[in-house]
């Protein structure tokens, strides 16, 4: 018996020794291996993986020499490459992250970095604008307060306050807007001229005309309801509070708000008159439906992306006019427009280089004017970008369209990105209710009910105002 115990002790001791030696070996190996790059809360240095060692940047070596790690989605890769060309002295490790709008993989990766206290990228392009909500939450606090960075003060001043309002969280600018995506009023100028219709000035005029056109020309439609941006297109424009935080944990959600009920009634009447389609703008069937589209509020990228490239609407017909008014004031939604964030964990030389990067991608014409497909959010870059826009003769009345683009920037209604995904709730409730025969009123009631449930389940306290 005693021999057996001695053997057991010997085996246990031996096993422990093997495990300890293996752990030491692993730890030893790791000291020469790379980490994830990016910031560390303890040292604040960039990750130990150099650009050269991973072969991911190809722009030289890093280590503690100020190399920065940036995460971007595929369309923003040229921005990083333009930066590398302009600043060859700054080594960049670029990671192309999952560009799925509404995807959770970036958020999950950051939760891991928060738990480990290291690994964050020094700068990131948030594919989903909603990401700014968790990135600025007290739990994560990833996105740095850029208002406190003197080198970026002039950059922030270069934005229209409405354009950068999504980054203004609690009075602090926590991100920089890449491109602006305000809604304008798109319409088929040829159809309007042929039928002597007047371009509407207000939201009420728009719905009245939509119903009239649907009556005069059965089948013609004046907008789409089924995509995630429709909530911005209609409810945000009407100042209906779906994304109105009172604090980090409190939000106003009130379907009985007069703005919500008024826009709800207008949508209901137009949908009943068959003036609006339950499809979403990105649906495959929208290509066919677009042949009957005569006008719609929509982001300024609708022109090049939807009308011209996707729906292939004939050239020379469409243009845009000034923002519609709500209660007498220009008021439109906003559909997209990406955000750049900077790590609050980065320090030293890396911080200096990250600030240089942020400044470049937000303002430099080499990216914003020459390469970016969206209207630059940064004011001084807008005119040079607009000068290159529409030169192919696709649009009708290009000067009016460009003026509409510029005037829409200041007309964007207040809206904050939240931890809940409003657009996703919209697509889960509105099109499904409408296509199953429900009314717009019933669809909106379901939308608000689901949105309230989701906000509460995330931990928000919901109030009516």
């Amino acid at each position, binding site marked *: 018996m005693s021999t057996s115990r001695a053997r057991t002790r010997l085996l246990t001791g031996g096993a422990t020794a093997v495990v300890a030696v293996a752990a030491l070996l692993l730890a030893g*190996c790791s000291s020469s*291996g790379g980490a994830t790059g990016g910031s560390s809360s303890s040292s604040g240095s960039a990750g130990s993986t150099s650009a050269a060692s991973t072969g991911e940047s190809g722009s030289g070596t890093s280590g503690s020499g100020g190399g920065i790690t940036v995460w971007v989605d595929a369309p923003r890769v040229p921005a990083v490459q333009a930066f590398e060309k302009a600043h060859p002295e700054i080594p960049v490790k670029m990671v192309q992250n999952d560009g799925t709008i509404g995807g959770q993989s970036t958020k999950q990766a950051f939760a*891991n970095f928060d738990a480990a206290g*290291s*690994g964050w990228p020094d700068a990131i392009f948030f594919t989903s604008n909603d990401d700014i909500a968790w990135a600025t939450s007290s739990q994560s606090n990833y996105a740095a307060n850029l208002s406190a960075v003197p080198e970026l003060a002039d950059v922030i001043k270069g934005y229209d306050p409405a354009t950068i309002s999504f980054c203004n969280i609690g009075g602090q600018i926590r991100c920089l807007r890449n491109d602006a995506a305000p809604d304008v009023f798109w319409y088929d100028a040829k159809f309007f001229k042929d039928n002597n219709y007047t371009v509407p000035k207000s939201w009420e005029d728009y719905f009245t005309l939509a119903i009239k056109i649907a009556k005069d020309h059965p089948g013609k439609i004046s907008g789409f309801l089924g995509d995630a941006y429709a909530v911005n297109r209609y409810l945000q424009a009407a100042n209906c509070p779906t994304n109105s935080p009172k604090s980090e944990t409190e939000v106003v959600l009130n379907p009985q708000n007069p703005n919500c009920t008024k826009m709800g009634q207008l949508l209901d009447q137009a949908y009943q008159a068959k003036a609006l389609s339950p499809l979403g703008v990105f649906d495959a069937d929208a290509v066919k439906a677009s042949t009957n589209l005569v006008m719609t509020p929509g982001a300024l990228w609708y022109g090049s992306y939807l009308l011209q490239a996707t729906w292939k609407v004939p050239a020379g017909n469409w243009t845009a006019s000034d923002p519609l008014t709500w209660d007498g004031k220009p008021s439109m939604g906003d559909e997209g427009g990406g955000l750049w964030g900077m790590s609050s964990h980065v320090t030293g030389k890396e911080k200096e280089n990250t600030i240089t990067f942020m400044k470049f991608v937000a303002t430099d014409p080499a990216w914003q004017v020459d390469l970016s497909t969206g209207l630059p959010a940064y004011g001084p870059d807008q005119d040079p970008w607009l000068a290159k826009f529409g030169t192919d003769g696709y649009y009708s009345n290009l000067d009016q369209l460009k003026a509409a683009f510029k005037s829409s920037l200041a007309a964007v209604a207040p809206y904050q990105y939240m931890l809940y995904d409003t657009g996703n709730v919209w697509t889960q409730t509105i099109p499904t209710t409408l296509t199953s025969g429900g009314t717009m009123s019933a669809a909106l009631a379901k939308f608000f009910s689901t949105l309230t449930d989701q906000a509460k389940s995330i931990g928000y306290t919901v109030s009516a105002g």
Partner: protein
Amino acid sequence: MSAADVATQHRAHVVQRPWSAGRTARVAVMVIAAALVLYPIIGFVAMAFRSQTGVQEGTDGFLGLAGVSIQHAIDNWKTLTAYGPRGGGLFQRWLLNSVIVSVSGAVLAVVTALPAGFAMARLRWRGRRFWLIVTLIAMAMPNTVLVIPIFLQVDAIGAVGQLWPVAVLMGFFPFGVYLSYIHFMTAMPHELVEAARVDGLGEGGTFFRVALPISKQAVALVTFFSFVANWTNFFLPLTLLTSSQQNKTLSIGLQEFIGASPLFNPTSAAGLTVKLWMPELAFATFISMLPLLVVFIAAQRFLIRGQTVGAVKG
């Protein structure tokens, strides 16, 4: 009666077998079930060999079969391999990474699972039952429970974003241990172990010279299941490799393709030079299936025999 007469009579019997209502119904159900399964698979494989122009114009006929061609597959491959910053090449790299971690993980799983299964089945040692229960619990443990602990451990040794921790963790394959345990319990008579000991073999010698040579099916089964689990593993690479562009595996790379496709992210993909439409995405998925098919075909002989592992006590 000669053998030929018997065969002729059998053929006649088969041919003349009446189509009863029951038989007709059974065949009809099976044909419908097969069609339901095959319809999307044929459509998916055909999509990998079609062009975006054909898809867009809707001129490729039933299931797109009229638009299938090798040239389209070559074009789709060229587009896929052009994806990525600095001249592309990410797809091939991710494919190679998947091969590296899946093969390494499978080798580790075989190397560790078979001796562990043998020890649990045929050796007498203190705690044997306890470790068997631990193996069963580890088999049932969901991946999500382990995400943060695994990430923290790998981060602590500075190896996040590297391939080797993924391969090592994939080598941890409790199902393989259990499979080996069942194999040695049922396919290897206790008398064989006793005879080996009488002949003077130690535990190692018994395992390597007696147990292993009669365990080809078990090796094939553990290799196959381990490789398939590694190749399709999404969660572990997602947790450990997200921060490294070059070191991603195909399983998470496919998700990145989807995120960068105009089909799923129309607005953000508007500025892309390499656009991945349905045929390219289907082709990438088709390519990612090929190693599984190869491993399945290679292991098929053993898999069919190995299906009876544990069915009969030896």
